[in-house]
């Protein structure tokens, strides 16, 4: 018998590698076309007779390609097809984007910090309205600029999506998505996940109402060095993942109040017909100059909606300036023990 170490056995098996001597796969033209197809929702069909892997769905979801990636992809395609880049070739009409909301100006001299602090104080006195239960049940409606890359052209459309989820702390749950597609019937996806397959956000369920601790918790995943816009992203992400009790809501409002260069944009009726107070920050944090707006319910302190608007230029995207390029409405957020059938 010959003694062979694990390393030696690995080397022996490595010697059978059929790819030995062949260059590693690379992101070539085919790969880029696949990437564009995936991001625009037109992914290749599975082989005949195949069943989807766990977590996959037979239907492909039309997803959203936000500005930075669209711009990055446009740059890549320009390199691959010089002389006729995305958006080139003329004749590509500007994409439809949602009409901007109408903001009614607040009284002159309104200090956003003071206003948010007052809202926080009121919110902190409210009874908990998030309920109890294993699952975070969230309903949201989103719009995002969706960009499909077809040969040399980037076309854009506003694609609304309704998302309802039930997610347990261990990452098990269900996600229902309805995608409204321009000129086509809505596509509905119903995906169930086993433990560990989703982000159960246990850390977000235990956010502190203490300002210092809350800031530490938020900044763990939203580093300060990313700039002030990251603070708004932290709020958006929190509301995207968990129901937020009033005490933490108040803390989040105080956290928002501490955002440098934040402005009080005005009162506004959001796209669900709810009245809120809007706060905005201008930043080129994501690649193109963008106004990030959060709309807060003055009665409950909840984040009602967020809106992203391109303000000065559109890069490779065929949208007018200014244009709303992304929008989220938070429609419901409670804890429950039951997943709807």
């Amino acid at each position, binding site marked *: 018998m010959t003694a062979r170490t694990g390393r030696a056995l690995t080397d022996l098996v490595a010697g059978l590698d059929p790819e030995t001597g062949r260059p590693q796969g690379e992101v070539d033209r085919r790969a880029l076309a696949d990437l564009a197809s*995936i991001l625009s929702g037109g992914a290749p069909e599975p082989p005949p007779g195949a069943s989807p892997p766990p977590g996959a769905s037979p239907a492909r979801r039309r997803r959203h390609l936000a500005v930075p*990636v669209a711009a990055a992809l446009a740059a890549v395609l320009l390199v691959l097809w010089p002389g006729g880049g995305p958006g080139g070739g003329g004749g590509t009409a500007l994409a439809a984007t949602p009409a901007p909301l109408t903001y009614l100006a607040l009284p002159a001299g309104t200090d956003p910090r003071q206003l948010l602090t007052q809202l926080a104080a009121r919110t902190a006195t409210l009874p908990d309205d998030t309920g109890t239960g294993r699952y975070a049940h969230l309903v949201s409606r989103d719009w995002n600029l969706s960009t499909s890359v077809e040969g040399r052209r980037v076309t854009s459309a506003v694609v609304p999506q309704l998302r309802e989820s039930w997610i347990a702390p261990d990452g098990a749950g269900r996600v229902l998505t309805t995608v409204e597609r321009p000129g086509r019937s809505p596509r509905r996806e119903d995906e169930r996940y086993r433990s560990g397959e989703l982000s159960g956000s246990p850390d977000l369920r235990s956010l502190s109402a203490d300002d210092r601790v809350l800031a530490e918790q938020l900044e763990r995943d939203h580093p300060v060095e990313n700039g002030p816009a990251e603070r708004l992203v932290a709020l958006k992400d929190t509301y995207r993942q968990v129901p937020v009790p009033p005490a933490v809501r108040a803390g989040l409002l105080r956290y928002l109040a501490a955002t440098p260069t934040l402005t009080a944009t005005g009162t506004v009726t959001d796209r669900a017909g709810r009245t809120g107070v809007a706060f905005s920050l201008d930043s080129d944090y994501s690649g193109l100059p963008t106004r990030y707006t959060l709309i807060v319910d003055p009665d409950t302190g909840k984040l009602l909606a967020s809106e992203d608007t391109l303000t000065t230029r559109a890069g490779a995207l065929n949208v007018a300036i200014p244009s709303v390029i992304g929008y989220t409405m938070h429609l419901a957020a409670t804890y429950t023990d039951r997943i709807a059938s």
Partner: protein
Amino acid sequence: MAQSASERERSFVALYERHYGSVLTYARRRTDEASARDVAAETFTVAWRRSGEVTRMDLPWLLRTAALVLANQQRSGRRQQRTADRLAAQPRQVAADPSTDRPGPARVARALDALSPDDRELLQLVAWERLSTSGLAAVLGCTSGTAAVRLHRARRRLRAALDAADDSADHPAPAATPRRATS
């Protein structure tokens, strides 16, 4: 904590750029070129749909998904036949190095063929995809400890299979055996 939509998309493109080649190479080892391209595209389609929701999306996760996609794909008899045809057409090195006791590739191939598909896949993941124990665990969907134990046992069985083959001539393995297929 979840990323914003733009961050998620940026991360996905970075993931694609970083790992597309590895996923494609993984698939090429196990099927023909056209199918390998489809496996890579399907793998990243799943990754895109689940980006922002999967807690840790990295190469082992992608390989695990690719293995599932490949298994689904290979239920199609036509593609499986193409795989077998490709593997059958591939020349094999058969000579052992007489200056050492290192067994020749054909003997190693025979020993691998004698193992269970699970053992074979596990050993190939380590040798071909250069996975660490933790990466292996992520691909297999088990803990690092379990992966280490399974690797240890697979190596023990490979040693035994190699020793059993030591006395036989180092002749070519049956070329039509699609031992690189995952199913």
